[in-house]
Protein backbone atom coordinates (compact mmCIF):
# COMPACT_ATOMS: atom_id res chain seq x y z
CA UNK A 1 0.00 0.00 0.00
CA UNK A 2 2.06 2.82 -1.32
CA UNK A 3 -0.14 5.85 -0.99
CA UNK A 4 -3.29 7.38 0.42
CA UNK A 5 -5.34 6.53 -2.65
CA UNK A 6 -4.61 2.82 -2.37
CA UNK A 7 -5.40 2.78 1.32
CA UNK A 8 -8.70 4.52 0.66
CA UNK A 9 -9.55 2.14 -2.13
CA UNK A 10 -8.71 -0.86 0.03
CA UNK A 11 -10.85 0.42 2.87
CA UNK A 12 -13.66 1.13 0.43
CA UNK A 13 -13.27 -2.35 -1.04
CA UNK A 14 -13.51 -3.91 2.39
CA UNK A 15 -16.59 -1.85 3.22
CA UNK A 16 -18.26 -2.98 0.02
CA UNK A 17 -17.38 -6.57 0.77
CA UNK A 18 -18.69 -6.17 4.29
CA UNK A 19 -21.91 -4.92 2.80
CA UNK A 20 -21.97 -8.02 0.67
CA UNK A 21 -21.38 -10.10 3.78
CA UNK A 22 -24.35 -8.45 5.47
CA UNK A 23 -26.44 -9.12 2.40
CA UNK A 24 -25.37 -12.75 2.42
CA UNK A 25 -26.19 -12.99 6.11
CA UNK A 26 -29.74 -11.76 5.69
CA UNK A 27 -30.71 -12.89 2.24
CA UNK A 28 -29.00 -16.20 1.61
CA UNK A 29 -29.79 -19.69 2.76
CA UNK A 30 -27.81 -21.34 5.46
CA UNK A 31 -26.11 -23.73 3.03
CA UNK A 32 -24.70 -20.91 0.92
CA UNK A 33 -23.71 -18.98 4.01
CA UNK A 34 -21.94 -22.03 5.26
CA UNK A 35 -19.90 -22.27 2.08
CA UNK A 36 -19.06 -18.58 2.17
CA UNK A 37 -17.99 -18.95 5.79
CA UNK A 38 -15.89 -21.95 4.97
CA UNK A 39 -14.19 -19.97 2.18
CA UNK A 40 -13.44 -17.18 4.63
CA UNK A 41 -12.10 -19.53 7.29
CA UNK A 42 -9.99 -21.37 4.75
CA UNK A 43 -8.68 -18.01 3.62
CA UNK A 44 -7.50 -17.26 7.15
CA UNK A 45 -5.72 -20.57 7.42
CA UNK A 46 -4.40 -20.39 3.87
CA UNK A 47 -2.92 -16.98 4.66
CA UNK A 48 -1.38 -18.31 7.82
CA UNK A 49 0.20 -21.18 5.93
CA UNK A 50 1.42 -18.89 3.19
CA UNK A 51 3.20 -16.80 5.78
CA UNK A 52 5.52 -19.64 6.74
CA UNK A 53 5.60 -21.63 3.54
CA UNK A 54 5.33 -18.90 0.95
CA UNK A 55 6.95 -15.87 2.50
CA UNK A 56 9.44 -17.21 5.00
CA UNK A 57 10.12 -20.31 2.91
CA UNK A 58 9.78 -22.65 5.88
CA UNK A 59 7.87 -25.74 4.94
CA UNK A 60 5.39 -26.39 7.72
CA UNK A 61 2.65 -28.98 7.58
CA UNK A 62 1.15 -28.37 10.99
CA UNK A 63 -1.91 -26.35 10.04
CA UNK A 64 -4.40 -29.06 10.97
CA UNK A 65 -2.77 -29.40 14.38
CA UNK A 66 -2.83 -25.68 15.10
CA UNK A 67 -6.44 -25.55 13.94
CA UNK A 68 -7.23 -28.37 16.33
CA UNK A 69 -5.73 -26.41 19.20
CA UNK A 70 -7.82 -23.34 18.40
CA UNK A 71 -10.92 -25.38 17.74
CA UNK A 72 -10.66 -27.28 20.99
CA UNK A 73 -10.04 -24.21 23.08
CA UNK A 74 -13.18 -22.70 21.57
CA UNK A 75 -15.01 -25.98 22.01
CA UNK A 76 -14.01 -26.41 25.64
CA UNK A 77 -14.63 -22.87 26.78
CA UNK A 78 -17.69 -21.79 24.86
CA UNK A 79 -19.98 -24.72 25.58
CA UNK A 80 -22.37 -23.32 28.22
CA UNK A 81 -21.52 -24.63 31.67
CA UNK A 82 -24.99 -26.02 32.23
CA UNK A 83 -24.74 -28.15 29.07
CA UNK A 84 -21.35 -29.60 29.92
CA UNK A 85 -22.44 -32.62 31.99
CA UNK A 86 -24.43 -33.56 28.94
CA UNK A 87 -21.44 -33.28 26.63
CA UNK A 88 -18.91 -34.83 28.97
CA UNK A 89 -21.10 -37.77 29.84
CA UNK A 90 -18.43 -40.46 29.73
CA UNK A 91 -16.08 -38.73 32.14
CA UNK A 92 -16.86 -35.44 33.86
CA UNK A 93 -14.93 -32.40 32.81
CA UNK A 94 -11.78 -31.62 34.73
CA UNK A 95 -12.79 -29.38 37.69
CA UNK A 96 -10.02 -26.94 36.76
CA UNK A 97 -11.87 -25.86 33.67
CA UNK A 98 -15.38 -27.08 34.31
CA UNK A 99 -16.65 -23.67 35.38
CA UNK A 100 -14.79 -21.45 33.00
CA UNK A 101 -16.87 -20.13 30.19
CA UNK A 102 -15.69 -17.52 27.73
CA UNK A 103 -17.24 -15.46 24.99
CA UNK A 104 -16.27 -16.65 21.53
CA UNK A 105 -13.80 -13.89 20.74
CA UNK A 106 -11.90 -14.46 23.97
CA UNK A 107 -11.80 -18.22 23.52
CA UNK A 108 -10.55 -17.68 19.99
CA UNK A 109 -7.83 -15.39 21.21
CA UNK A 110 -6.78 -17.88 23.86
CA UNK A 111 -6.77 -20.62 21.24
CA UNK A 112 -4.61 -18.55 18.92
CA UNK A 113 -2.16 -17.71 21.67
CA UNK A 114 -1.95 -21.32 22.79
CA UNK A 115 -1.26 -22.34 19.19
CA UNK A 116 1.51 -19.78 19.00
CA UNK A 117 3.00 -21.04 22.25
CA UNK A 118 2.98 -24.60 20.97
CA UNK A 119 4.55 -23.40 17.73
CA UNK A 120 7.34 -21.90 19.78
CA UNK A 121 7.88 -25.16 21.63
CA UNK A 122 8.12 -27.11 18.37
CA UNK A 123 10.08 -24.45 16.58
CA UNK A 124 12.65 -24.05 19.28
CA UNK A 125 14.41 -27.36 18.61
CA UNK A 126 13.41 -27.81 14.99
CA UNK A 127 13.82 -24.42 13.34
CA UNK A 128 17.55 -24.49 13.94
CA UNK A 129 17.88 -27.53 11.74
CA UNK A 130 17.80 -28.33 8.08
CA UNK A 131 14.64 -26.89 6.59
CA UNK A 132 12.72 -29.98 5.59
CA UNK A 133 12.81 -31.49 9.07
CA UNK A 134 10.22 -28.88 9.89
CA UNK A 135 7.81 -30.59 7.51
CA UNK A 136 8.10 -33.89 9.37
CA UNK A 137 8.14 -32.34 12.82
CA UNK A 138 5.02 -30.32 12.15
CA UNK A 139 3.24 -33.21 10.48
CA UNK A 140 4.15 -35.34 13.47
CA UNK A 141 3.01 -32.64 15.82
CA UNK A 142 -0.38 -32.39 14.20
CA UNK A 143 -0.79 -36.13 14.73
CA UNK A 144 0.44 -35.89 18.33
CA UNK A 145 -2.11 -33.19 19.00
CA UNK A 146 -4.80 -35.59 17.86
CA UNK A 147 -3.37 -38.33 20.03
CA UNK A 148 -3.30 -36.03 23.05
CA UNK A 149 -6.83 -34.82 22.37
CA UNK A 150 -8.08 -38.36 22.00
CA UNK A 151 -6.51 -39.41 25.27
CA UNK A 152 -7.11 -36.39 27.49
CA UNK A 153 -10.67 -37.45 28.14
CA UNK A 154 -11.49 -35.08 31.00
CA UNK A 155 -10.28 -32.05 29.08
CA UNK A 156 -11.39 -32.76 25.57
CA UNK A 157 -13.94 -35.53 25.89
CA UNK A 158 -11.57 -37.74 23.91
CA UNK A 159 -12.78 -39.52 20.83
CA UNK A 160 -16.39 -38.59 21.61
CA UNK A 161 -15.69 -35.02 20.63
CA UNK A 162 -17.35 -31.91 21.93
CA UNK A 163 -20.81 -31.08 20.76
CA UNK A 164 -23.18 -28.22 21.57
CA UNK A 165 -20.63 -25.57 20.68
CA UNK A 166 -22.75 -22.44 20.17
CA UNK A 167 -23.00 -22.51 16.41
CA UNK A 168 -22.13 -19.38 14.55
CA UNK A 169 -23.07 -19.20 10.95
CA UNK A 170 -22.61 -15.47 10.83
CA UNK A 171 -20.92 -14.24 7.69
CA UNK A 172 -20.30 -10.79 9.18
CA UNK A 173 -18.34 -12.00 12.16
CA UNK A 174 -16.21 -14.38 10.13
CA UNK A 175 -15.73 -11.76 7.44
CA UNK A 176 -14.35 -9.36 10.01
CA UNK A 177 -11.97 -12.01 11.32
CA UNK A 178 -10.79 -12.71 7.79
CA UNK A 179 -10.40 -9.02 7.00
CA UNK A 180 -8.32 -8.50 10.13
CA UNK A 181 -6.12 -11.45 9.23
CA UNK A 182 -5.76 -10.19 5.69
CA UNK A 183 -4.82 -6.69 6.80
CA UNK A 184 -2.46 -7.97 9.46
CA UNK A 185 -0.60 -10.29 7.12
CA UNK A 186 -0.49 -7.64 4.38
CA UNK A 187 0.92 -5.04 6.74
CA UNK A 188 3.37 -7.53 8.19
CA UNK A 189 4.65 -8.54 4.78
CA UNK A 190 5.00 -4.91 3.76
CA UNK A 191 7.00 -4.09 6.84
CA UNK A 192 10.69 -4.52 7.40
CA UNK A 193 10.01 -7.87 9.06
CA UNK A 194 8.18 -9.08 5.99
CA UNK A 195 11.21 -8.24 3.89
CA UNK A 196 13.37 -10.14 6.34
CA UNK A 197 11.12 -13.19 5.91
CA UNK A 198 11.46 -12.99 2.16
CA UNK A 199 15.22 -12.65 2.50
CA UNK A 200 15.31 -15.91 4.44
CA UNK A 201 13.22 -17.57 1.76
CA UNK A 202 15.52 -16.35 -0.99
CA UNK A 203 18.87 -17.17 0.59
CA UNK A 204 19.39 -18.07 4.21
CA UNK A 205 23.12 -17.58 4.16
CA UNK A 206 22.95 -14.15 2.59
CA UNK A 207 20.11 -13.12 4.89
CA UNK A 208 22.11 -14.10 7.91
CA UNK A 209 25.17 -12.26 6.63
CA UNK A 210 23.00 -9.14 6.29
CA UNK A 211 22.12 -9.35 9.96
CA UNK A 212 18.76 -11.12 9.72
CA UNK A 213 18.70 -13.51 12.67
CA UNK A 214 17.45 -16.74 11.15
CA UNK A 215 16.06 -18.42 14.21
CA UNK A 216 14.34 -15.32 15.53
CA UNK A 217 12.60 -14.52 12.28
CA UNK A 218 11.66 -18.08 11.41
CA UNK A 219 10.24 -18.51 14.87
CA UNK A 220 8.33 -15.27 14.55
CA UNK A 221 6.77 -16.26 11.23
CA UNK A 222 5.98 -19.71 12.52
CA UNK A 223 4.30 -18.41 15.69
CA UNK A 224 2.24 -15.78 13.90
CA UNK A 225 1.17 -18.40 11.41
CA UNK A 226 0.17 -20.76 14.22
CA UNK A 227 -1.74 -17.96 15.89
CA UNK A 228 -3.91 -17.37 12.85
CA UNK A 229 -4.34 -21.07 12.21
CA UNK A 230 -5.62 -21.30 15.79
CA UNK A 231 -8.01 -18.42 15.17
CA UNK A 232 -9.22 -20.12 12.01
CA UNK A 233 -9.60 -23.39 13.87
CA UNK A 234 -11.74 -21.67 16.49
CA UNK A 235 -14.03 -20.33 13.81
CA UNK A 236 -14.12 -23.74 12.18
CA UNK A 237 -15.35 -25.20 15.47
CA UNK A 238 -18.18 -22.71 15.72
CA UNK A 239 -19.11 -23.30 12.12
CA UNK A 240 -19.31 -27.06 12.63
CA UNK A 241 -20.88 -26.79 16.06
CA UNK A 242 -18.99 -29.91 17.10
CA UNK A 243 -15.36 -30.91 17.11
CA UNK A 244 -13.84 -34.31 17.27
CA UNK A 245 -10.27 -35.47 16.70
CA UNK A 246 -11.13 -36.91 13.31
CA UNK A 247 -11.92 -33.42 11.99
CA UNK A 248 -8.24 -32.61 12.18
CA UNK A 249 -6.52 -35.39 10.31
CA UNK A 250 -3.29 -34.19 8.76
CA UNK A 251 -4.91 -34.55 5.34
CA UNK A 252 -6.86 -31.42 6.23
CA UNK A 253 -3.57 -29.55 5.92
CA UNK A 254 -3.39 -30.61 2.28
CA UNK A 255 -6.43 -28.41 1.53
CA UNK A 256 -4.44 -25.38 2.57
CA UNK A 257 -1.42 -26.62 0.72
CA UNK A 258 -3.49 -26.71 -2.45
CA UNK A 259 -4.85 -23.25 -1.68
CA UNK A 260 -1.42 -21.68 -1.44
CA UNK A 261 0.05 -23.62 -4.33
CA UNK A 262 -2.87 -22.78 -6.58
CA UNK A 263 -3.02 -19.15 -5.46
CA UNK A 264 0.73 -18.72 -5.59
CA UNK A 265 3.23 -19.31 -2.82
CA UNK A 266 4.12 -15.90 -1.52
CA UNK A 267 1.03 -14.04 -2.68
CA UNK A 268 -1.56 -12.85 -0.18
CA UNK A 269 -4.24 -12.09 -2.69
CA UNK A 270 -3.36 -15.40 -4.33
CA UNK A 271 -4.23 -17.22 -1.12
CA UNK A 272 -7.55 -15.43 -0.95
CA UNK A 273 -8.37 -16.46 -4.50
CA UNK A 274 -7.08 -19.95 -3.88
CA UNK A 275 -9.26 -20.43 -0.86
CA UNK A 276 -12.36 -19.43 -2.75
CA UNK A 277 -11.56 -21.70 -5.66
CA UNK A 278 -10.57 -24.68 -3.53
CA UNK A 279 -13.46 -24.46 -1.08
CA UNK A 280 -16.07 -23.85 -3.72
CA UNK A 281 -14.40 -26.43 -5.93
CA UNK A 282 -14.45 -29.08 -3.23
CA UNK A 283 -18.13 -28.42 -2.71
CA UNK A 284 -18.81 -28.54 -6.41
CA UNK A 285 -16.80 -31.72 -6.83
CA UNK A 286 -19.20 -33.45 -4.47
CA UNK A 287 -21.23 -34.43 -7.51
CA UNK A 288 -18.41 -36.79 -8.40
CA UNK A 289 -19.00 -38.72 -5.23
CA UNK A 290 -22.64 -39.36 -6.17
CA UNK A 291 -23.54 -42.11 -8.58
CA UNK A 292 -24.38 -40.49 -11.88
CA UNK A 293 -26.69 -41.74 -14.56
CA UNK A 294 -26.63 -40.37 -18.05
CA UNK A 295 -29.24 -41.60 -20.53
CA UNK A 296 -30.07 -44.47 -18.26
CA UNK A 297 -26.46 -45.61 -18.06
CA UNK A 298 -24.54 -45.45 -14.82
CA UNK A 299 -21.21 -43.75 -15.31
CA UNK A 300 -18.92 -46.14 -13.53
CA UNK A 301 -16.34 -43.62 -12.30
CA UNK A 302 -18.72 -41.74 -10.08
CA UNK A 303 -18.70 -43.14 -6.60
CA UNK A 304 -17.49 -42.06 -3.16
CA UNK A 305 -13.84 -41.15 -3.10
CA UNK A 306 -13.64 -39.89 -6.68
CA UNK A 307 -13.73 -36.28 -5.52
CA UNK A 308 -10.58 -36.70 -3.47
CA UNK A 309 -8.81 -38.44 -6.35
CA UNK A 310 -9.53 -35.43 -8.52
CA UNK A 311 -8.42 -33.17 -5.72
CA UNK A 312 -5.07 -34.89 -5.39
CA UNK A 313 -4.55 -35.00 -9.15
CA UNK A 314 -5.19 -31.24 -9.19
CA UNK A 315 -2.58 -30.70 -6.51
CA UNK A 316 -0.05 -32.75 -8.46
CA UNK A 317 -0.90 -31.12 -11.77
CA UNK A 318 -0.62 -27.71 -10.22
CA UNK A 319 2.85 -28.25 -8.85
CA UNK A 320 4.07 -30.15 -11.92
CA UNK A 321 2.77 -27.90 -14.66
CA UNK A 322 1.85 -24.64 -13.03
CA UNK A 323 4.32 -24.14 -10.31
CA UNK A 324 3.71 -20.44 -9.91
CA UNK A 325 -0.01 -20.80 -9.43
CA UNK A 326 -2.44 -18.03 -10.29
CA UNK A 327 -0.49 -15.13 -8.86
CA UNK A 328 3.08 -16.33 -8.50
CA UNK A 329 4.58 -14.04 -5.93
CA UNK A 330 2.68 -11.07 -7.34
CA UNK A 331 -0.12 -9.26 -5.63
CA UNK A 332 -3.30 -7.65 -6.75
CA UNK A 333 -2.66 -3.92 -6.78
CA UNK A 334 -5.04 -1.09 -7.47
CA UNK A 335 -2.66 0.21 -10.08
CA UNK A 336 -2.85 -2.98 -12.09
CA UNK A 337 -6.57 -3.12 -11.49
CA UNK A 338 -7.03 0.33 -12.97
CA UNK A 339 -4.81 -0.42 -15.90
CA UNK A 340 -6.95 -3.47 -16.45
CA UNK A 341 -10.22 -1.54 -16.17
CA UNK A 342 -9.08 1.13 -18.58
CA UNK A 343 -8.02 -1.26 -21.25
CA UNK A 344 -8.20 -4.99 -20.58
CA UNK A 345 -6.84 -5.97 -23.96
CA UNK A 346 -3.81 -3.74 -23.67
CA UNK A 347 -3.24 -4.91 -20.09
CA UNK A 348 -2.89 -8.52 -21.14
CA UNK A 349 -0.97 -7.93 -24.33
CA UNK A 350 1.54 -5.80 -22.49
CA UNK A 351 1.82 -8.40 -19.81
CA UNK A 352 2.46 -10.98 -22.46
CA UNK A 353 5.21 -8.85 -23.93
CA UNK A 354 6.97 -8.74 -20.60
Amino acid sequence: MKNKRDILLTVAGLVVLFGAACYAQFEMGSYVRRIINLCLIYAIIGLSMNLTNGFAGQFSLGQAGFMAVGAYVVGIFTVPVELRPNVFYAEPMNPLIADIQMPLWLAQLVGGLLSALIAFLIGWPVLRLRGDYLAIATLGFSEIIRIVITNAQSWTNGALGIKDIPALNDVRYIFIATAITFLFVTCLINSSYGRAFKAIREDEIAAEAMGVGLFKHKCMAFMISAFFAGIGGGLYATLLGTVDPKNFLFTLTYNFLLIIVLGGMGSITGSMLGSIIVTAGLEYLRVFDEPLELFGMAIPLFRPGFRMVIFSVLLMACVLFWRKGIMGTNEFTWEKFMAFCKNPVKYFTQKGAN
Partner: protein
Amino acid sequence: MSTVLKTESITMRFGGVTAVNELKLNIEEHKIVALIGPNGAGKTTAFNMITGVYTPTEGKVKYTAPGKDEVDITGKRPSDIAKMGIARTFQNIRLFKDLSVYENVMIAKHLHLKSDVFSATLHLPWYNAEQREMEKDVEELLRKVDLWELRNEKASSLPYGQQRRLEIVRALATGPKLLLLDEPAAGMNPKETAELTEFIRQIRDEYNLTIFMIEHHMDLVMEISDWIYVLDFGMEIAQGTPADIQNNTRVIEAYLGVDEDA
Protein backbone atom coordinates in the same frame (compact mmCIF):
# COMPACT_ATOMS: atom_id res chain seq x y z
CA MET B 1 46.52 3.31 13.74
CA SER B 2 44.31 0.99 15.71
CA THR B 3 43.50 -2.58 14.84
CA VAL B 4 39.99 -3.42 13.68
CA LEU B 5 40.25 -7.15 13.23
CA LYS B 6 42.68 -9.61 14.65
CA THR B 7 42.74 -13.36 14.29
CA GLU B 8 44.75 -15.37 16.76
CA SER B 9 46.01 -18.48 15.01
CA ILE B 10 42.69 -19.54 13.58
CA THR B 11 42.60 -23.05 12.21
CA MET B 12 39.80 -24.77 10.33
CA ARG B 13 39.72 -28.51 9.76
CA PHE B 14 37.12 -30.36 7.74
CA GLY B 15 37.50 -34.00 8.69
CA GLY B 16 41.13 -34.69 7.90
CA VAL B 17 41.68 -31.64 5.72
CA THR B 18 43.14 -28.53 7.25
CA ALA B 19 41.75 -25.74 5.15
CA VAL B 20 43.30 -22.92 7.13
CA ASN B 21 46.22 -23.42 9.47
CA GLU B 22 47.06 -21.02 12.29
CA LEU B 23 46.28 -17.89 10.37
CA LYS B 24 47.19 -14.66 12.10
CA LEU B 25 45.73 -11.54 10.60
CA ASN B 26 45.94 -8.03 11.83
CA ILE B 27 43.85 -5.51 9.96
CA GLU B 28 44.19 -1.85 10.71
CA GLU B 29 41.60 0.83 10.52
CA HIS B 30 40.93 2.55 7.23
CA LYS B 31 43.30 0.26 5.33
CA ILE B 32 42.56 -1.82 2.28
CA VAL B 33 43.98 -5.23 2.93
CA ALA B 34 44.04 -8.03 0.40
CA LEU B 35 44.15 -11.76 0.89
CA ILE B 36 45.58 -13.57 -2.10
CA GLY B 37 46.64 -17.07 -2.91
CA PRO B 38 46.03 -19.85 -5.42
CA ASN B 39 42.64 -21.55 -5.65
CA GLY B 40 41.90 -23.72 -2.68
CA ALA B 41 44.35 -21.88 -0.46
CA GLY B 42 41.66 -21.37 2.17
CA LYS B 43 40.86 -17.73 1.56
CA THR B 44 37.10 -18.03 1.57
CA THR B 45 37.30 -20.34 4.56
CA ALA B 46 39.12 -17.57 6.41
CA PHE B 47 36.30 -15.18 5.47
CA ASN B 48 33.73 -17.67 6.65
CA MET B 49 35.45 -17.96 10.01
CA ILE B 50 35.54 -14.21 10.44
CA THR B 51 31.88 -13.75 9.53
CA GLY B 52 30.65 -16.64 11.66
CA VAL B 53 29.61 -19.02 8.89
CA TYR B 54 32.14 -21.49 10.28
CA THR B 55 33.40 -21.67 13.83
CA PRO B 56 37.18 -22.06 13.80
CA THR B 57 38.41 -25.42 15.05
CA GLU B 58 41.05 -23.54 16.99
CA GLY B 59 41.96 -19.93 17.61
CA LYS B 60 40.07 -16.73 18.18
CA VAL B 61 38.71 -13.90 16.08
CA LYS B 62 38.73 -10.51 17.74
CA TYR B 63 37.04 -7.40 16.49
CA THR B 64 37.32 -3.84 17.65
CA ALA B 65 34.71 -1.44 16.39
CA PRO B 66 36.22 2.06 16.14
CA GLY B 67 35.99 3.74 19.52
CA LYS B 68 34.87 0.57 21.26
CA ASP B 69 36.49 -2.24 23.19
CA GLU B 70 37.82 -5.37 21.61
CA VAL B 71 35.30 -8.23 21.49
CA ASP B 72 35.81 -11.91 20.91
CA ILE B 73 33.51 -12.82 18.01
CA THR B 74 34.66 -16.41 17.59
CA GLY B 75 31.70 -18.67 16.91
CA LYS B 76 29.08 -15.93 17.08
CA ARG B 77 26.13 -16.13 14.70
CA PRO B 78 26.72 -14.41 11.34
CA SER B 79 23.74 -12.14 12.00
CA ASP B 80 25.22 -10.95 15.29
CA ILE B 81 28.56 -10.33 13.66
CA ALA B 82 26.85 -8.32 10.93
CA LYS B 83 25.16 -6.24 13.61
CA MET B 84 28.52 -5.45 15.15
CA GLY B 85 29.67 -3.91 11.90
CA ILE B 86 31.25 -6.58 9.72
CA ALA B 87 29.58 -6.98 6.33
CA ARG B 88 30.56 -9.20 3.44
CA THR B 89 29.93 -10.16 -0.14
CA PHE B 90 30.12 -13.65 -1.58
CA GLN B 91 32.31 -15.29 -4.15
CA ASN B 92 29.35 -16.56 -6.15
CA ILE B 93 26.99 -13.65 -5.80
CA ARG B 94 24.25 -14.33 -3.30
CA LEU B 95 21.64 -11.68 -3.95
CA PHE B 96 18.00 -12.18 -3.06
CA LYS B 97 17.37 -13.08 -6.68
CA ASP B 98 13.63 -12.74 -6.95
CA LEU B 99 13.42 -9.53 -4.98
CA SER B 100 13.90 -6.06 -6.40
CA VAL B 101 17.11 -4.10 -6.19
CA TYR B 102 15.39 -1.80 -3.74
CA GLU B 103 14.22 -4.62 -1.49
CA ASN B 104 17.67 -6.18 -1.53
CA VAL B 105 19.14 -3.05 -0.06
CA MET B 106 16.24 -2.39 2.30
CA ILE B 107 16.71 -5.84 3.84
CA ALA B 108 20.23 -4.89 4.78
CA LYS B 109 18.80 -2.00 6.79
CA HIS B 110 16.63 -4.36 8.82
CA LEU B 111 19.32 -5.16 11.36
CA HIS B 112 19.23 -1.69 12.85
CA LEU B 113 15.46 -1.67 13.25
CA LYS B 114 14.43 -1.03 16.83
CA SER B 115 10.65 -1.42 16.50
CA ASP B 116 9.29 -4.84 17.34
CA VAL B 117 7.24 -6.88 14.93
CA PHE B 118 3.88 -5.62 16.19
CA SER B 119 4.66 -1.94 15.95
CA ALA B 120 6.07 -2.67 12.51
CA THR B 121 2.99 -4.56 11.39
CA LEU B 122 0.63 -1.95 12.75
CA HIS B 123 2.82 0.75 11.24
CA LEU B 124 2.89 2.68 14.50
CA PRO B 125 4.40 6.17 14.37
CA TRP B 126 7.82 5.23 15.72
CA TYR B 127 8.09 2.42 13.19
CA ASN B 128 7.03 4.73 10.38
CA ALA B 129 9.71 7.19 11.41
CA GLU B 130 12.30 4.43 11.29
CA GLN B 131 10.95 3.21 7.96
CA ARG B 132 11.20 6.69 6.46
CA GLU B 133 14.75 6.96 7.71
CA MET B 134 15.60 3.64 6.07
CA GLU B 135 13.95 4.66 2.82
CA LYS B 136 15.88 7.91 2.78
CA ASP B 137 19.20 6.20 3.39
CA VAL B 138 18.56 3.59 0.76
CA GLU B 139 17.54 6.15 -1.82
CA GLU B 140 20.65 8.17 -1.12
CA LEU B 141 22.84 5.11 -1.37
CA LEU B 142 21.24 3.84 -4.57
CA ARG B 143 21.46 7.23 -6.22
CA LYS B 144 25.10 7.49 -5.32
CA VAL B 145 25.95 4.22 -7.01
CA ASP B 146 23.71 4.79 -10.03
CA LEU B 147 21.32 1.96 -9.21
CA TRP B 148 18.34 4.17 -8.36
CA GLU B 149 16.90 3.97 -11.86
CA LEU B 150 17.02 0.20 -11.65
CA ARG B 151 15.48 -0.03 -8.18
CA ASN B 152 12.37 -1.92 -9.29
CA GLU B 153 14.23 -4.45 -11.38
CA LYS B 154 14.59 -7.99 -10.10
CA ALA B 155 18.10 -8.47 -8.75
CA SER B 156 18.66 -11.47 -10.99
CA SER B 157 17.80 -9.47 -14.09
CA LEU B 158 20.74 -7.10 -13.67
CA PRO B 159 23.85 -7.61 -15.77
CA TYR B 160 26.65 -9.41 -14.00
CA GLY B 161 28.76 -6.38 -13.18
CA GLN B 162 25.77 -4.55 -11.72
CA GLN B 163 24.94 -7.57 -9.59
CA ARG B 164 28.42 -7.49 -8.08
CA ARG B 165 28.02 -3.80 -7.44
CA LEU B 166 24.60 -4.30 -5.89
CA GLU B 167 26.00 -6.91 -3.59
CA ILE B 168 28.60 -4.45 -2.35
CA VAL B 169 25.94 -1.79 -1.94
CA ARG B 170 23.77 -4.20 0.01
CA ALA B 171 26.67 -4.93 2.34
CA LEU B 172 27.27 -1.18 2.69
CA ALA B 173 23.68 -0.64 3.69
CA THR B 174 24.23 -2.62 6.87
CA GLY B 175 26.46 0.27 7.95
CA PRO B 176 29.65 -1.71 8.39
CA LYS B 177 32.95 -0.64 9.84
CA LEU B 178 34.74 -3.52 8.20
CA LEU B 179 33.78 -4.69 4.74
CA LEU B 180 34.83 -8.08 3.45
CA LEU B 181 34.77 -8.50 -0.32
CA ASP B 182 35.12 -12.00 -1.72
CA GLU B 183 36.53 -11.67 -5.25
CA PRO B 184 34.69 -8.48 -6.16
CA ALA B 185 36.27 -8.34 -9.61
CA ALA B 186 35.66 -11.96 -10.57
CA GLY B 187 34.46 -12.18 -14.14
CA MET B 188 35.00 -8.50 -14.90
CA ASN B 189 36.78 -7.09 -17.91
CA PRO B 190 39.67 -4.62 -17.47
CA LYS B 191 37.43 -1.59 -17.85
CA GLU B 192 34.98 -2.83 -15.25
CA THR B 193 37.86 -3.74 -12.98
CA ALA B 194 39.25 -0.23 -13.22
CA GLU B 195 35.84 1.18 -12.34
CA LEU B 196 35.61 -1.18 -9.43
CA THR B 197 39.01 -0.10 -8.14
CA GLU B 198 37.83 3.46 -8.13
CA PHE B 199 34.54 2.45 -6.50
CA ILE B 200 36.23 0.59 -3.66
CA ARG B 201 38.47 3.56 -2.90
CA GLN B 202 35.52 5.89 -3.04
CA ILE B 203 33.39 3.94 -0.58
CA ARG B 204 36.32 3.43 1.73
CA ASP B 205 36.76 7.17 2.03
CA GLU B 206 33.14 8.13 2.00
CA TYR B 207 31.97 5.63 4.61
CA ASN B 208 35.20 5.53 6.53
CA LEU B 209 35.60 1.79 6.07
CA THR B 210 38.26 -0.76 6.52
CA ILE B 211 38.28 -3.15 3.60
CA PHE B 212 39.51 -6.70 3.56
CA MET B 213 39.24 -8.47 0.25
CA ILE B 214 40.03 -11.66 -1.56
CA GLU B 215 41.01 -11.02 -5.14
CA HIS B 216 42.71 -12.69 -8.07
CA HIS B 217 43.13 -9.67 -10.33
CA MET B 218 46.69 -8.77 -9.47
CA ASP B 219 46.62 -5.34 -11.06
CA LEU B 220 43.67 -4.44 -8.87
CA VAL B 221 45.31 -5.87 -5.76
CA MET B 222 48.65 -4.24 -6.35
CA GLU B 223 47.14 -0.88 -7.13
CA ILE B 224 44.72 -0.60 -4.29
CA SER B 225 46.05 -2.55 -1.30
CA ASP B 226 47.88 -1.10 1.63
CA TRP B 227 48.82 -4.51 2.88
CA ILE B 228 48.68 -8.01 1.43
CA TYR B 229 48.52 -11.46 2.98
CA VAL B 230 49.44 -14.45 0.85
CA LEU B 231 47.97 -17.83 1.63
CA ASP B 232 48.99 -21.19 0.23
CA PHE B 233 47.63 -24.54 1.38
CA GLY B 234 45.97 -22.84 4.33
CA MET B 235 49.20 -21.28 5.59
CA GLU B 236 50.36 -17.72 5.41
CA ILE B 237 53.48 -17.65 3.28
CA ALA B 238 54.04 -13.93 3.14
CA GLN B 239 52.68 -10.55 4.09
CA GLY B 240 53.72 -7.05 3.27
CA THR B 241 53.14 -4.06 1.05
CA PRO B 242 52.43 -4.66 -2.63
CA ALA B 243 56.04 -3.91 -3.43
CA ASP B 244 57.27 -6.47 -0.90
CA ILE B 245 54.94 -9.12 -2.21
CA GLN B 246 55.85 -8.55 -5.82
CA ASN B 247 59.48 -9.21 -4.99
CA ASN B 248 58.94 -12.07 -2.59
CA THR B 249 60.42 -15.21 -4.10
CA ARG B 250 58.20 -17.59 -2.15
CA VAL B 251 55.11 -15.83 -3.40
CA ILE B 252 56.39 -15.86 -6.94
CA GLU B 253 57.08 -19.55 -6.68
CA ALA B 254 53.80 -20.44 -5.10
CA TYR B 255 51.56 -18.14 -6.94
CA LEU B 256 52.68 -15.41 -9.24
CA GLY B 257 55.02 -17.67 -11.14
CA VAL B 258 52.23 -19.91 -12.29
CA ASP B 259 49.54 -17.30 -12.76
CA GLU B 260 49.52 -15.96 -16.30
CA ASP B 261 47.29 -13.05 -15.38
CA ALA B 262 49.84 -11.56 -13.05
